[in-house]
């Protein structure tokens, strides 16, 4: 499927994430990963993760400061296969 990407978290196994079904945070929670979060809407930055490779698209504009190389999984979806540190 064109919208399904492989996402690797903390060097773990590749997980299938459908970009049309909710945010990256929700997708990873469905895979039973323990995720850091507070607001879940892009303004607090608690879910901040490092993007080692790949690209994401924000569905809501993040208000938290996104440092270079970081992403906020609570308000983005994958646009390619990803490798992240969370």
């Amino acid at each position, binding site marked *: 499927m064109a919208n399904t990407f492989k996402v690797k978290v903390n060097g773990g196994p590749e997980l299938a994430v459908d970009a049309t079904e909710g945010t990256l945070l929700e997708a990873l929670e469905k895979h039973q990963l*323990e995720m*850091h*979060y*507070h*607001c*879940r*809407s892009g*303004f*607090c*930055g*608690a879910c*901040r993760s490092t993007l080692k490779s790949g690209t994401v698209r924000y569905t809501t*504009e993040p*208000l*938290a*400061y996104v*440092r*270079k190389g970081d992403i906020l999984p609570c308000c983005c979806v994958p646009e390619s296969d990803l490798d992240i540190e969370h």
Partner: protein
Amino acid sequence: MSYSTFNQEQNNPLTEPMFLGNSVNVARYDQQKHSIFEKLIEKQISFFWRPEEIDVSRDRIDFNKLTASEKHVFISNLKYQTLLDSIQGRSPNIALLPIVSLPELETWIETWSFFETIHSRSYTHILRNLFSDPSEVFEDIVINEQIKIRANDISKYYDDLIFYTQLLQTHGEGDIVVDGKTYTVTQREIKKKLFLCINSVNALEAIRFYVSFACTFAFAERELMEGNAKIIKLIARDENVHLTSTQHILNLWQYGEDDPEMKEIAEELRGDAYEIFMTAVKQEKQWAHYLFKDGSMIGLNESMLCQYVEYIANLRMQAIGFDAPFENQRSNPLPWMNKYLVSDNVQVAPQESEITSYLVGQIDSEVNASDLGDFDL
């Protein structure tokens, strides 16, 4: 040099630094150097709430059922939060408005402080409901040693910045003698004090509130003091927005996206910034110790709280470019906290907090053709 409430210099706000450039003259938002601050204003205003909307009357019954040690935890936290918001309700205005140079940031600071005053008013709302005379609780805030240690550590950076700004704005740069003591005032020195102050405020918003938040939500997990928990949920949501603003200021400086001199200072004082954060962590752990000195409460004890402080400190320090200092505390020891910190779960519509005044004066605005049936022309 001296502050003007309407600087007549024709300056370009797009080229001003966030602080210590020209003072703001026209409050215009059609063009913005750092538009994020207006977005934060909008977000914060969309979260507007009033303490009176939340019914805390059941809490009085719950409070009387708490053990003595649980009452100590509850009241001590309220005192501490009252202190924090007393400081935050005025200090960003007094310390930062005289030196701010961007209209959007000036308005953000005013919005931020205003919301802290809502928090202060909500503590009175909570305490009035619990005690027929809450004076004793308020009066203890300036006597209690544990609170005073924290008050001193938080206010000293603000006070220092305010004092030096006053000297700069009355005397200009140079050696200034006040009461026999010489103060060397330079723009750069004030920028350093500003940097330390923002780091201290950032640490405050980032972790100082969270020990008391955790206790509040631990009570709510046992279905106790739920009116209070509803209020604290709203406060926690606001504090997250405030925290984002201080993280933005620090990161903008660090990445050289604002005043180049502030970038140098951020590098020069990186160690001091780290220490400010770690001192706050240490003090919060000591606070957890003080809270549970007479015994813990169901679902929460001193060591879990300390682990939570470390966990949250990791997240917060990474947000401003430090490595996580507590490597062995990478998972959340209090996972139930998150459900109180999710923004979508916060309900503020008056009809959902069951206030009777909401229904007074309601009218049925629906008009059907049959309503006009007995009209004659």
